[in-house]
């Protein structure tokens, strides 16, 4: 792992064949206990933050990746930036039926267009015992929605068309209060109509799992609305999505269309900016860790001058010595990294791992769960080993260049 190119070239000119045994480095780390411990703690703190950030980014990425159905198009009013601030008239909705290239419902023979209305309701967060509330999206849909949003899977019963019933996404049910099956929530413009939760649904982990769905005409009535918010369309398997989008945006229809992937990418823009800023800060922290490791390794090399000289005298070449010290620092960093990952996992477990965030312009919350999965942990550990190795390169070079004979004479 710590096979540095410099080490390899030096080794090529050496006659020694033997590497320093791992156990030597392991014991060396324990020779200066307090210094090793402090360095491990520095690395652990940096790893914990890094692992949290990588997990957050991974959760966001996977949530958005699930939403990226290439055959699905979201239509908004031109100028609107999100479903929640878009308003589409019934005439415009009719124009959409004439767009070529849409998938056809085999049962009704009509194009797969799902008219939808998006409003929101304030619900308390379960994570902090209801001290704060989030704006949860409420989507009015018809039966067509289930043919357009193919990844939506019902768990239990669907709402009945005539009655005041809703179904809730499984993430919403986990994160917000009052959304268990059988609960009643107050919806409507004056929050005066009770709707019963009759079932939950999944959407393959995508953002729709943070929503509440009900029957469109019933919800439009409850919210005094005559306008739709948006439409979701399914493109025919043989049609080109670019062409369909151009037709919708063209002079005949004049609405705004984007694929689902593009739509969600734009909504997550803010959070991506925050993540980028956090990335820079964590990068600076990692540099501080590199310096700290370097400091420790310089001291270690200085304190072991005679020992290193001895190793040289008994036949270990400079390449071996260099590789050995880099390896030693990498082990040190790895211990810190494992500790840091454990701290991150404990934090997620104790403080809570459900997050929700605002879409850039939706004003509704998108909930997701942060999990420190093995892949993310491995990524974090790989970064940390690099930090350790980077910190050790210069001190290890000093060790490798120690003159063997005069080194032995040092006190």
């Amino acid at each position, binding site marked *: 792992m710590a096979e540095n190119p410099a080490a390899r070239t030096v080794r090529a000119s050496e006659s020694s064949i033997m590497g320093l045994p791992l156990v030597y480095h392991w014991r060396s780390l324990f020779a200066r206990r307090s210094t090793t411990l402090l360095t491990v703690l520095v690395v652990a703190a940096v790893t914990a933050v890094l692992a949290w950030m990588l997990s957050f980014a991974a959760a966001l990425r996977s949530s958005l990746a699930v939403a990226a159905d290439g055959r699905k198009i979201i239509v908004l009013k031109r*100028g609107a930036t999100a479903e929640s601030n878009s308003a589409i008239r019934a005439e415009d909705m009719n124009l959409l039926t004439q767009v070529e290239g849409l998938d056809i419902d085999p049962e009704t023979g009509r194009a797969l267009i799902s008219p939808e209305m998006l409003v929101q309701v304030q619900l308390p967060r379960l994570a902090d015992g209801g001290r704060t509330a989030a704006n949860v999206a409420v989507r009015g849909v018809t039966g067509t929605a289930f043919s357009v949003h193919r990844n939506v899977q019902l768990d239990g019963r669907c709402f009945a068309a005539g009655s005041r019933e809703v179904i809730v996404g499984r993430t919403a049910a986990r994160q917000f209060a009052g959304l268990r099956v059988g609960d009643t929530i107050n919806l409507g*413009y004056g929050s005066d109509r009770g709707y019963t939760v009759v079932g939950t649904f999944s959407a393959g982990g995508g953002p729709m799992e943070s929503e509440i769905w009900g029957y469109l005409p019933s919800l439009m009535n409850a919210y005094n609305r005559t306008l739709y918010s948006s439409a979701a369309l399914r493109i025919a398997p043989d049609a080109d999505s670019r062409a369909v989008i151009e037709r919708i945006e063209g002079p005949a229809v004049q609405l705004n269309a984007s694929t689902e992937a593009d739509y969600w990418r734009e909504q997550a823009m803010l959070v991506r900016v925050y993540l980028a800023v956090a990335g820079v800060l964590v990068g600076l922290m990692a540099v501080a860790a590199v310096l700290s490791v370097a*400091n*420790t390794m*310089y001291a270690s090399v200085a304190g072991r001058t005679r020992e290193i000289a001895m190793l040289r005298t008994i036949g270990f070449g400079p390449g071996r010595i260099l590789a050995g010290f880099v390896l030693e620092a990498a082990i040190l960093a790895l211990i810190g990294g494992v500790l840091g990952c454990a701290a991150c996992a404990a934090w997620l477990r104790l403080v809570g791992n459900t997050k929700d965030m605002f879409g850039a312009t939706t004003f509704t919350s998108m909930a997701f769960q942060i999990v420190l999965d093995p892949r993310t942990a491995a990524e974090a550990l790989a970064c940390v080993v690099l930090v350790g190795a980077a910190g050790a390169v210069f001190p290890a070079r000093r060790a490798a260049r120690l003159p063997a004979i005069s080194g032995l004479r040092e006190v």
Partner: protein
Amino acid sequence: MLRLAYLYRNLTRNPMRALLTCAAVALPIAIYVLSMSVVDGVNRFLDNSARQLRLAVTHRSSIINPLPAGYRAKIESLDPTRTRLLSVCGIDWIGGKIEGDPRPLSTLGADHDTFVQTFPEYRLTPEEIAEWNRDRRAIIVGAAAARQFGWKVGDRITILPSLPPYQPMEFRVISTAPRAEDPLTLWFHRQYLVEARKQAGWEEERVGFYFIKCASQADLDHFRVAIDELFANTPDETKTQDEKAFMNEFITQQFNLPRNLTILAAVTVFVAVMAAANTMSMNFRDRLNELATLKAMGFRGTLISAIIQAESLFLCAVGGLLGAAGPYVAFNHTPLRDFTVPLIQQLDVRAATCGKAMLMAVGISVLAALWPAWLAARMNVVAALRSLE
């Protein structure tokens, strides 16, 4: 004098170690300054909101439900003499974008006749107020927004609203609000929006929310309840809260940036403490014999502890100074000063935050030297002299 010379010699006898320690403290301090600048900025923004004695009246069900336009007159009728309830300003959010630019704007339409009184912190000049009242296309743009988009007073700008009428609207910049606390928001005449909506065929006039300026804290508390009572049991019930609570709701929704940054700052200080403590403990270890000799010669343990503390203080202070000065200079005197944190505010690195960071560096130095200084004070001279490596 001799002690200072000894301190200086100690600092310079391992320049690499001193340098690495300074840098390992400077970087975390820089991170601390950057994250606390954002947190302080948010708090300043909220404090201003609290100081302004304003109430925000929104629809009880959701902020996206607008209220009837007639509510302004009804709220005003609660205090016809306008001594306790100073002004009522109807506001509509239209978000908006500039054609061909992906950056979202925060554009608000406000009742032009009460805007100046409701938002006195904009401190418009009499000329600007005259312009604002005269031109129905007048727009006040936040200072940071103006810098980002290169707008100057007198410029004509076209904004595409994210809400009805969804058609480009033209404005004329009358002020770049250099003295306002909020550097990002754009304000224009709500009446202009009403007319544009009518022309585009959106009939009903409703108002997003109302801001109300009160005369005193007691009046604020009174009207917070009185307004909700006024509209109880109507189809459009209201939720009235003070401006700080209203703003805070938005900020905690933004993935709770202040809280997360505070945690990051705390971890970062921990890193600095460990890095500095590492150096001090290595120094102690390397100089064990020397310190024991000093003690054997008759110097007292407290003096030796003080020397260790002083060295730690010096290293951390230099690191802290570098770490605080870096971001301060970068974000006040280079092009980076226009950097904004989306939807929250401009990143404003203030001297006060840097000062706090310096204090933090001093605290770090004390913590870092605690253990070696204690060991030095209690050192057994004979045992230490014998521990020759």
